[in-house]
């Protein structure tokens, strides 16, 4: 019998109560623990979609309460109320901008998902639909060849060979777009397959060194594959590199993957802020990683090659673990 496992949720005190308690603790006794609670409250507020102004107003109510209990504190009540209103006003544009950023992040996530679907569709079209047309062409050619004298038959044979190459190449593109290897064998074999193709096409020597094996949860594998794919595309397209090193390993509880090339490098800050395709590519990589709890660091300078380092807490490798926010 299947037993439903219920996640035990600690009953949370209402936000204002918890806030008031933590505030009282800190203002009476101080200490990092109370500040930690404050930080936790900030995270909770974001999750519960509380606006910056609500937080400001809570803060001031708590301050109000504390002050009322102090000798002579009542004198400052009016000043405090005015200060609260004033602060809320100055925070209001930040709240507006904050909502804009949240919208943009949500849109980017959505875009990634849509893109993945689209890629799947194209990979299928290239592989299956184009493949079927090619089969029909083969059959038609065979029909034609049957009625031809030998010298022309040989010419048709050469066309067939070219068609075979087209078919092979299409299959390869389709597999690189959305490798079945990725679903069947995991992201490391998928990256090996991808690297092999890029290496031939772009004349790059790509070395892969890995000290870990095994599968990661599906979304994590797709994200990592896409990031390595983007990195290799960048290396092939912009870096003028001749060699690329991909290293995959694990240090303590952190899972690392680095992609390094010996190319011309670039000014990281300039590219990241220029908003053009390449800058967006880097932002999209970062965003993909945010989605799975990872981080990206980019080391590069003109003439010094490029190194991308992906780091991911090892817990996210466990397919059964869920993110607790």
């Amino acid at each position: 019998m299947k037993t439903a496992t219920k996640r035990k949720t600690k009953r949370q005190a209402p936000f204002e109560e918890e806030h008031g308690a933590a505030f009282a603790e800190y203002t009476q006794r101080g200490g990092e623990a109370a500040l930690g609670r404050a930080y936790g409250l900030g995270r909770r507020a974001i999750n519960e979609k509380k606006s910056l102004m609500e937080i400001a107003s809570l803060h001031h109510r708590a301050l109000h309460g504390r002050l009322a209990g102090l000798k002579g504190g009542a004198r400052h009540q009016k000043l405090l109320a005015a200060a609260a209103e004033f602060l809320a006003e100055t925070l209001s544009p930040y709240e507006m901008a904050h909502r804009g950023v949240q919208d943009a992040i949500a849109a980017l996530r959505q875009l990634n998902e849509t893109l993945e679907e689209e890629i799947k569709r194209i990979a299928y079209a290239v592989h299956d639909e184009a493949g079927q047309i090619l089969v029909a062409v083969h059959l038609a050619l065979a029909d034609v060849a049957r009625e031809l004298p030998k010298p022309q038959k040989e010419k048709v044979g050469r066309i067939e060979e070219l068609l075979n190459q087209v078919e092979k190449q299409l299959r390869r593109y389709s597999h690189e777009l959305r490798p079945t290897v990725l679903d069947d064998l995991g992201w490391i074999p998928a990256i090996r397959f991808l690297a092999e193709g890029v290496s031939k096409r772009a004349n790059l020597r790509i070395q892969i060194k890995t000290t870990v094996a095994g599968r990661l949860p599906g979304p994590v594998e797709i994200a990592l594959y896409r990031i390595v794919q983007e990195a290799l595309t960048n290396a092939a397209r912009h870096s003028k590199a001749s060699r690329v090193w991909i290293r995959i390993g694990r240090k303590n509880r952190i899972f690392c993957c680095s992609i390094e090339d010996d190319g011309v490098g670039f000014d990281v800050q300039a590219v990241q802020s220029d908003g053009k395709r390449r800058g967006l590519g880097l932002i999209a990589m970062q965003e993909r990683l945010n989605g799975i709890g990872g981080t990206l660091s980019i080391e590069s300078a003109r003439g010094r090659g490029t190194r991308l380092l992906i780091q991911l807490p090892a817990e996210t490798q466990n397919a059964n673990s869920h993110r607790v926010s």
Partner: protein
Amino acid sequence: MPAEEVEVAISSDQDIVLARQKGRAMAVELGFSSGDATLIATAISELARNILSYARRGKISLKMVHASNRQGISIIASDSGPGIRDIRQAMRDGFSTSGSLGLGLPGVRRLMDEFEIASEPGHGTIVTVKKWKQ
């Protein structure tokens, strides 16, 4: 008690202040939290500022709205200025005079629950927004 409906002519910074004041009073009267009242005042500021920068003059109408199960405030900003040629562009982040990401009209859209914009080049612009009490 404030009226159910108020209109403020906008042609100067002082008028913006008046519109904010009326809007905030109406929001408080309707029982909005002080945080939400601030957001409503902010939306009024942005809409009024738009009127000043693009049309020079116009008006802000504030109205209490009652639906079967909820109450809210509606803000209508109208002008007969040059109008907006490309509304989609005007609604894009970073396009407005503010230049900053997330402010201007797209910012207002995010602060409010409902947002409607109509504009005809040469005939002016009407922006209607509503916020419902949670």
